[in-house]
């Protein structure tokens, strides 16, 4: 490893880095703007100047931009040299000439990189006495606020939005000192990752519009490490609360999962926590003969639980802990997974493949490092958005490696490398029933029915490994697609195969596993990635339980009378008819949930439970990584965690095992002890009695304000601060001020670094893992030596049936997820229900775009307006999944029109 001398002190640094990265990794304070660890260097802002000396005799040296200089052994440089310091001070003085006097009314204030860097360089007084340039702002939709006057022209926004996230509608306009960052005209920023502009922008040009509705400075937020509930990827987030409502979600860096970014559903989908539909007090519907009013609610619950007649229905959006306690309470034979039949089969299969197969599930960062990607039957941008962002990085992998070796530039030389790469793309093949957003970066995109996708994948496996069965009766198109994909995959060292719930087909999942295993057998370091629909789908399946259909049967045939439903809206799982029948036959329905929904309408007792912001819990993401989310704040009313309600219920019912679980840590230990697959779940975060220097870790920064005034309107005597007996965190600002363990970082802050960029101080090296390792633990590892049992059962090709259409599910990042649509901005971007047809099918059924198409499914009649899309497989019809008012129609399935 090279040794460099900074201000005459030798440091060992990592090869291949630039000086800025090296300095920041060493913990030195060097100001910068245009560099970003994920975006690389362009040397545009001239802020990170250092002085570099030729040798020991050289006393003059020369000023160089640290972000543009590679690390060389024996290098001598000075960060604190007076010329360099003065230069940096002048540069920021110039950057500030047009910066408005806005800090007091700017949402970035207090977490602003420009403020931090201005203070760091010592630029305290304005020398420029002429007038300031101004701009008009644009309306950029419900998520992002635009205030262009504040821009310092670092170009990070367009580099992120266009180059990194593949956005098309944000650009830089005009020239010289008039450059303008915005859209061609006012309108919503269309990219699904637009929210990251808020964190990428070093100042307040792009700010969080949902935060603006209830604005709070960073220093006033009570924050806790949390996990996004928006999809199955489990991105790490920081959730912040003030005055009893959740205010903001920001990215929590995890080098193995989401890195520096989040999708818009994750960042903005939090407002359900503050929804007026929240259940805050227990609700008991009294039967006429029920005279026991005034009893504690759990006594009511117990009175209605007839021994032997109680079943529990778990939930993929509830934590492992809650599902576990419910399973213990009702007994293994009475615990049902609260997910639909198709979904259950898919996830069960995925889990089996990941556990028993030889190929490893890729984390998102591993996916971004893949050199060839095949996506089978999945619209990633809508089903697992952040994975789509990883795929966008993966397609650059091969051309970038090629460029690096041909022009001898390090990868962080962003502008030079992009110039060399041009529009070259690495191999990415997408097979889906209809066009997807990622098609634009794909080498090949084929639109065909799920069974045909599986057939092509089987054919590719056969081409890679002749011993695997051949697919007979392939169309010429299919043959050619298979040949192209096989040829591209042969050269790949780290190929990635992605499939998931979005296609709704087991055959596709099997074909994906076959393909990945065949690649592995060819000697490639193959990876497999399955998407799952909800934040704890994988965890629920790992815990295991009976099918939801059998719960319906149990109620209908009278063997069960009381149903305990955990955080689950069964009207989203069962079709309307079945659900109505189910609830009609239930004697007692006890629901634990946080929002009113169709299921709570049918309940006799509703217990108010905490959302992710008001509860501690563990989720298992799609790669089998268990991650803990910690409570952000103490909610008003009777709200408590589901697992706590159920533990208390267990106590009242005299359940000996549950009675022995007194603390949260006991519960975690019990789970790890009972289920070997969950071993390690109890050590994800430090235990509740963990202390550093005798202190807990504070959720509030040391500048937290208003403690003696915020509740003074209620009572001038302040109440005792809330105590957290479950975790190592405290609800107050008192506690250990240094760096906490990586799994319980409530906020990123370092002296002089108030903005989100302070994450540099928490990393081993910039862009590397956090000190003490990235949080979370992988529970699923492949079985490398196990026999590979290839699937040989190849499905028949899809043939359209006259008078019928194959319903296929289509997902939407804004709309398909149950909770995020409670955010007004997300509801605004949600599509209206529709049915998508190929124009030939539309002619066949004599409908045009906008006409209503009628069909029956399970006795329920659907009438949906037609949308024409010629990339859709003929004979198939796409229906959006999960939208409110969209009844559950099982897809894929054949329906008669």
């Amino acid at each position, binding site marked *: 490893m090279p040794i460099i001398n900074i201000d005459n002190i030798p440091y060992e640094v990592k090869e291949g880095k630039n000086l800025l990265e090296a300095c920041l990794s060493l913990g030195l304070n060097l100001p910068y703007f245009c560099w970003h660890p994920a975006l690389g260097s362009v040397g545009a802002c001239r802020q990170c100047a250092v002085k570099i000396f030729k040798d020991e005799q050289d006393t003059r040296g020369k000023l160089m931009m640290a972000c543009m200089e590679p690390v060389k052994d024996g290098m001598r440089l000075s960060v604190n040299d007076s010329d360099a310091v003065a230069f940096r001070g002048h540069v920021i003085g110039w950057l500030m000439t047009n910066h408005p006097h806005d*800090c*007091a009314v700017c949402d970035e*204030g*207090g977490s602003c990189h420009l403020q931090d860097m201005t203070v760091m360089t010592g630029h305290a007084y304005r020398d420029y006495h002429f007038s300031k340039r101004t701009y008009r702002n644009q309306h950029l939709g419900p998520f992002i606020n635009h205030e262009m006057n504040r821009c310092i022209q670092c170009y990070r926004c367009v580099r992120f939005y266009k180059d990194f996230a593949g956005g098309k509608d944000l650009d830089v306009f005009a020239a010289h000192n*008039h450059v303008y960052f915005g859209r061609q005209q006012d309108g919503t920023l269309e990219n699904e990752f637009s929210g990251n502009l808020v964190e990428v922008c070093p100042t307040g040009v792009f700010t969080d519009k949902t935060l603006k509705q209830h604005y709070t*400075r960073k220093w006033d937020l009570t924050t806790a490490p949390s996990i996004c509930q928006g999809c199955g990827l489990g991105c790490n987030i920081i959730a912040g609360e003030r005055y009893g409502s959740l205010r903001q979600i920001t990215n929590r860096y995890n080098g193995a999962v989401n890195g520096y970014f989040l999708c818009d559903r994750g960042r903005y989908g939090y407002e359900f926590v503050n929804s007026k539909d929240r259940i805050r007090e227990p609700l008991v519907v009294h039967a006429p003969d029920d005279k026991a009013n005034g009893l504690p609610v759990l006594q009511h619950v117990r009175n209605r639980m007839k021994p032997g007649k109680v079943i529990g229905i778990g939930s993929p959006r509830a934590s492992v802990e809650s599902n576990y306690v419910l399973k213990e309470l009702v007994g293994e034979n009475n615990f049902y997974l609260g997910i639909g039949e198709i979904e259950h089969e898919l996830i069960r299969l995925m889990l089996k493949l990941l556990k028993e197969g030889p190929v490893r599930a890729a984390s998102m960062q591993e996916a971004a490092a893949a050199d060839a990607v095949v996506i089978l039957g999945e619209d990633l941008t809508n089903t697992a958005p952040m994975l789509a962002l990883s795929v966008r990085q993966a397609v650059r992998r091969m051309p970038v490696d090629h460029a690096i070796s041909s022009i001898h530039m390090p990868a962080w030389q962003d502008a030079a490398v992009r110039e060399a790469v041009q529009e070259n793309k690495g191999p990415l093949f997408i097979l889906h029933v209809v066009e997807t957003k990622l098609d634009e970066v794909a080498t090949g995109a084929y639109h065909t029915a799920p069974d045909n996708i599986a057939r092509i994948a089987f054919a590719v496996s056969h081409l890679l490994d002749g011993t695997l069965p051949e697919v007979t009766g392939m169309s010429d198109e299919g043959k050619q697609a298979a040949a192209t994909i096989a040829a591209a995959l042969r050269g790949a060292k780290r190929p990635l195969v992605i499939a998931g719930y979005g296609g709704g087909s087991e055959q596709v999942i099997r074909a994906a596993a076959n393909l990945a295993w065949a690649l592995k057998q060819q000697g490639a370091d193959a990876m497999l990635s399955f998407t799952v629909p909800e934040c704890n789908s994988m965890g629920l399946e790992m815990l295991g339980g009976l099918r939801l259909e059998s719960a319906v049967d149990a109620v209908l045939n009278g063997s069960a009378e009381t149903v305990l439903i955990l955080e689950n809206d069964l009207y989203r799982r069962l079709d309307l008819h079945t659900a109505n029948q189910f609830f009609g036959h239930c004697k007692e329905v006890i629901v634990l949930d946080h929002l009113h929904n169709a299921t709570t309408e049918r309940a006799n007792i509703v217990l108010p439970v905490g959302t992710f912001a008001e509860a501690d819990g563990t989720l298992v993401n799609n790669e089998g990584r268990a991650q803990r989310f910690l409570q952000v704040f103490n909610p008003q009313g009777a709200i408590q965690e589901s697992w706590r309600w159920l533990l208390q219920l267990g106590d009242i019912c005299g359940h000996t095992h549950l009675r022995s679980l007194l603390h949260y840590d006991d519960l975690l230990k019990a789970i790890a002890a009972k289920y070997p697959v969950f071993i390690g779940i109890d050590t994800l975060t430090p235990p509740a009695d963990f202390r550093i220097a005798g202190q807990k870790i504070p959720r509030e920064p040391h500048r937290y304000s208003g403690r003696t005034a915020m509740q003074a309107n209620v009572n001038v005597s302040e109440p005792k601060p809330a105590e957290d007996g479950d975790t190592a965190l405290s609800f107050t600002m008192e506690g250990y001020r240094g760096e906490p363990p990586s799994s319980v970082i409530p906020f990123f802050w370092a002296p002089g670094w108030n903005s989100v960029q302070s994450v540099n101080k928490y990393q081993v090296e910039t862009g590397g893992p956090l000190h003490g390792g990235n949080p979370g633990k992988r529970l699923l590892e492949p079985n490398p030596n196990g026999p590979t049992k290839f699937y040989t059962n190849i499905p028949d090709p899809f043939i359209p049936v006259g008078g019928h259409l194959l319903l296929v599910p289509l997902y939407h990042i804004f709309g398909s997820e149950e909770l995020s649509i409670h955010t007004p901005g997300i509801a605004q971007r949600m599509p209206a229900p529709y049915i998508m047809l190929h124009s030939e099918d539309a002619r066949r059924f004599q409908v045009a775009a906008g006409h209503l198409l009628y069909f029956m499914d399970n006795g329920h009649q659907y009438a949906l307006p037609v949308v024409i899309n010629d990339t859709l497989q003929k004979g198939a019809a796409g229906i959006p999944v999960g939208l409110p008012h969209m009844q559950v129609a099982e897809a894929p399935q054949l329906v008669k029109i």
Partner: protein
Amino acid sequence: MFSLLRSMWLVFLHMFHKRDTYQYPEQKAPLPARWRGRIALTRDPDGEERCVGCYLCAAACPVDCISLQATEDEHGRRYPEFFRINFSRCIFCGFCEEACPTYAIQLLPDFEMAEYNRQNLVYEKHDLLIPSQGKYPGYNYYKVAGLAIKNKDKGEAEQEEPPVDIKSLLP
């Protein structure tokens, strides 16, 4: 002996001195203009609230007795939705006034705030807001800030150029 007599003489002379004791409350003590007493929220020369809800006073407060919530009107002007000072905690240090970037929060030469009931020492915005500019007449934050509000568009603040025409090709 001499010093004893001298002291008695000096004490005797004090009988003819001007009195230092004020007959409070009948007689009020004159307080200097910068005396740090009751806290008020002042208004700008146009009579609008000066406070923009930036939270700096709350952050500066060593006893954390200020809490507020910022909001904005339909034209983008920021103001506090509520603004509360718990005077039973206030130590009248004046840090809030120093921190205030808009001269909104000011400490006035008035200390007559005693209450029998401690709850009455919690002042809300309507208790704090006064129809005056206080010690700093003439200052209007929005006239120097880049934010557009009602009756002040982009480029209309002091020392501002008119908004850039980004479609112009001129140098």
